[in-house]
């Protein structure tokens, strides 16, 4: 069963792609990995005049790193991130997160930029990128601009990108020495299902156990991938104890606004947010307190 009729453009550079987006506006559908786009087309939920494919823009498939940051092109597939040594040693939780997306063949197609610009609250990679304090590098007719990822998501399937802009890179600042990061995707039906809750945490443990730069990214428990800001504030600048971890976990759960669906109810997702934030924090501070 095939797709509605549309014209096809495959720009060879970011500039060409942005120009096309400007020309067709919301009458164009961008196809990076193509997973979401193909389902929207097949179910006739969108009937664009033009489909713009990013598959022939080599620069979008590069991973570069410098002193300050790691830059991952928007069209880098989840498989490539998982197997990249550079990403593994700078941002291991991003490798782990990409490794939990769907299944191997899906990871060979789906791109990091594609899933972020889709703005799906249940994204596996967004919580990790939030914990890593990543920024989205967006190119539009007026040139490039950087958007901190925590301000990138507005609502379900709606992001900071407007109709003539393209997400081109995800930039991850090199973590300070002593930063601890962890990632956990919990599903309660089958192992291949969408997450019930995804937790990604990055904490800088300074001298005498004082914690700073606390970032907790949560997935599948709100309309958008979110940061548990209140919970972060509870931990920031303090020596972490078992009690404080419990408090922060409960706070994170209260910040969530989980959806209900066939997989899990709102109440269960909130309860699991508390459980898994606590377990991930305990895993980080294992030596500090008996688990």
């Amino acid at each position: 069963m095939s797709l509605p009729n549309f014209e096809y453009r495959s720009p060879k550079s970011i500039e060409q792609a942005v120009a096309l987006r400007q020309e067709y506006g919301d009458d164009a559908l961008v196809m990076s990995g193509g997973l979401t786009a193909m389902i929207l087309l097949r179910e006739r939920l969108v009937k664009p005049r033009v489909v713009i494919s990013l598959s022939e823009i080599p620069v979008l498939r590069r991973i570069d790193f410098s002193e300050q940051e790691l830059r991952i092109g928007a069209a880098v597939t989840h498989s490539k991130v998982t197997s990249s040594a550079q990403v593994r040693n700078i941002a291991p939780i991003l490798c782990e997160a990409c490794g939990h997306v769907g299944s191997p063949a899906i990871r060979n197609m789906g791109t990091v930029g594609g899933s972020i610009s889709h703005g799906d609250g249940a994204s596996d990679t967004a919580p990790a990128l939030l914990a890593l304090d990543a920024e989205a590098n967006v190119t539009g007719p007026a040139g490039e601009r950087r958007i901190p990822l925590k301000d990138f998501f507005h609502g379900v399937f709606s992001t900071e990108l407007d109709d003539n802009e393209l997400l081109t890179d995800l930039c991850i600042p090199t973590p300070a020495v002593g930063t601890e990061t962890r990632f956990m995707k919990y599903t309660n039906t089958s192992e291949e299902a969408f997450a019930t809750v995804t937790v990604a945490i990055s904490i800088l443990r300074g001298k005498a156990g004082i914690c700073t730069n606390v970032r907790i990214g949560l997935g599948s428990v709100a309309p958008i991938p979110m940061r548990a800001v209140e919970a972060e504030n509870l931990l920031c600048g303090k020596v972490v104890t078992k009690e404080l971890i419990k408090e922060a976990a409960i706070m994170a759960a209260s910040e969530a606004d989980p959806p209900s669906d066939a997989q899990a109810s709102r109440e269960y997702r909130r309860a699991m947010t508390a459980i898994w934030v606590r377990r991930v924090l305990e895993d980080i501070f294992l030596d500090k307190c008996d688990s």
Partner: protein
Amino acid sequence: MDIESSKPTAQDPQKLRHVGKPCKRDDLINKVTGKWIYGTDFTLPGMLYAKALRSPYPHARIVSIDISRAQQFPGVNTVITADDLPSYRFGSAIRDEPFLACDKVRYTGEPIAAVAAISEEVAREAIDLIDVEYEELPGVYDVLEAMQPGSTLVHEDMDQYEMEGEYNRCPGSNIVGHTKIRHGDIEQGFLESDEIYEDVFTTQHVQHCSMEPHVGIAKIDEDGSVTIWSSCQSPYNAVRDMANALGLPYNMVRIICTGVGGGFGGKNYLRVEPLIVALAMHTNGRPVKLAFTRDEEFIASVCKHPVHLTFKTGVKRDGTITARKITAIFDTGGYADTGPLVARNGAFSGTGPYRIPHVSVDSYCVYTNNPLGGAFRGFGVPQLTWAHESQMDMIATRLNIDSVDIRMRNLYDLGDKTCTGEVLRTSVGVKDTLHLAVDLSNQGMQHKISDSPRIVRGQGIATMHKLTNTPSTSSVIIKMHADGTVNVLCSTVELGQGIYAALRQITAEQLGIPMEHVRIRAPDTDYTPFDQSTSGSRSVFHSGNALIRAADDLTNKLCKMAVPLLDCPIDSLVYNDGAVWQKNSNKFITAKEIIAGHFGPRGATVQGDGTFTPFGAKPPDKETGQTPRMSAFWMYATQIADVEVDVETGRIKVLRIVAAHDAGTIINPEGAEGQIVGGVVQGLGATLCEEMHVTEGVITNPTFVEYKLPTTMDIPEIVTGFVDSFHDEGPFGAKGLSEPALAPTSAAVANAVFNAIGVRITSLPITPEKILHALKLNQIDT
């Protein structure tokens, strides 16, 4: 030689060359190279592609349908609604389902209009151009409410539908089937008991999810004859139901089976065929193909009946069961399909494989405006097993008796009489399955024990029995070519379960020829003889017995033809290993030589014809369910589940399932193990993660994104074992195998969860959410 004397004696296994030995299936080479042609791959010249417009409402009157825009869409050949058809109605138990909805729609997804076009895309676009005006009606979605007198009627004119004899219905209500068992005196039974326990259990909508969706192609010739190429399980079901619906003689409906990508009961009756036949009547002879999309598999095909089960059991303090009263209510959705038969089948196995003097069973099949319930691997028995094996452990706990002992005390022995008045005179290995399961379980497990305090271990057991649809008939023709090689013409369908390998083994054994000389291919009802259905785990027993009779018929003919060639009387001749021998002499003549000698060098084919129906099987009495022979054979199984439960998240990890089965003689050992392992994993899916979420008749998760099937990462260690058991009427002692594999799994897991954390879940599926909720309630009580 008359039929009776050819009954197989207990040949000792060593002498057998093929039966019981590993055997290579001859369909696998085509499947691993992508050459096997399934329904979805099948195309014909001039073929049109169809799409159906389906109701978004579960219960609504059709006010108006405007198909004009669709008709003018370029590439559209035909657009039809119910007005373009006589009021055909089909249904295997009761002919209640129209080809296209005419007065009102009764379930979400019911077809209202259909389009045939030059391509799937055109048909898909044209469907969107059909405008329908609905007037939504209040629907009935709770099956208990649907049973109450005065509730919304799904079928106001149920009494006008033609119905198969043995189901009794209650016109003016939503009850379309009511099966009764009355054995002993139930009140007396409860008086004699020390304790009486009443527990309620429920199960959910589960979808077959065969990897190949439903698909079919129909063509109607000038003479009005109907040809259907279909990926179906039981071609003669389709012939009967389609011919009855169209009012055609049976020989005017021809079903040609394509390769089938899994059936599990979902393709046992008509589902896609009515739509393509309705369209083919208007396409001037061009064939019309309809293949369901995956979301149509959820909203437009049949699923496993959700059942509301009330078990009231009277027991002595020592665990002996004196009385069991069962009320089972099957939610069969907008149309009955084969619901009444499923409710009947479930009832007759419902008490469990236990000697119970006083039994009263009422099993109802009830219309609602929910998705359609139909045949699903196990035919109602998995739902009833879930109830009786859960309650058995609940009773064991209440009486402080070990769960194995309480079963041993009540399980059937050879010679016992079932609650439907049948004396179990052969092959009653249910206690052996219990012993074998316990032995296998004690042999230790690969999985190391988790040391985290949050993870708690538990083990649970469940035992079951299942009948097969009886009486039922299978006929087979063995056609021997001039070179002695053989084609078997039979209407049993290879769904993937490996039945053709078993039937080839039986044929090769009976004719004493190599396996390579025996071929079976997909049925075509113009040529292959009658077989009731590929369902109920009945094929080895019934088609196998028919094969033995057909082989006798063939070898008799060869012996008669050999008389002039060997110049000796008929009674001095005997057939063996592909040739006719003169007794106590080494004079023989091969089949090949017989055919050449009898018919001349141009050769001929010789056919052996065999038919089998279990003797002494009478339909059960409608009021009491009693019959001397309820089932051709009874299958038994015991499974033990080992689980770990995370008490904080409620997540269950099944570590191991031990499955011990009594299937009589195993014809194909490797195939048998595959059926058990596949069945156990299907059982685990229905236990832990599979559920069609239906709210007010609407399915909210009709895709694999939200209806989760077990994956390679969800399967436990599975240990299988078969007790040796011999059924004196089975081919080489064989019975049936595939369905029992998924029946006890749910209760075994639930009992293991109770054993681990003392929490009793009585509704399927067992989700982490239910476990957490129950744990909280426990904390409040204790």
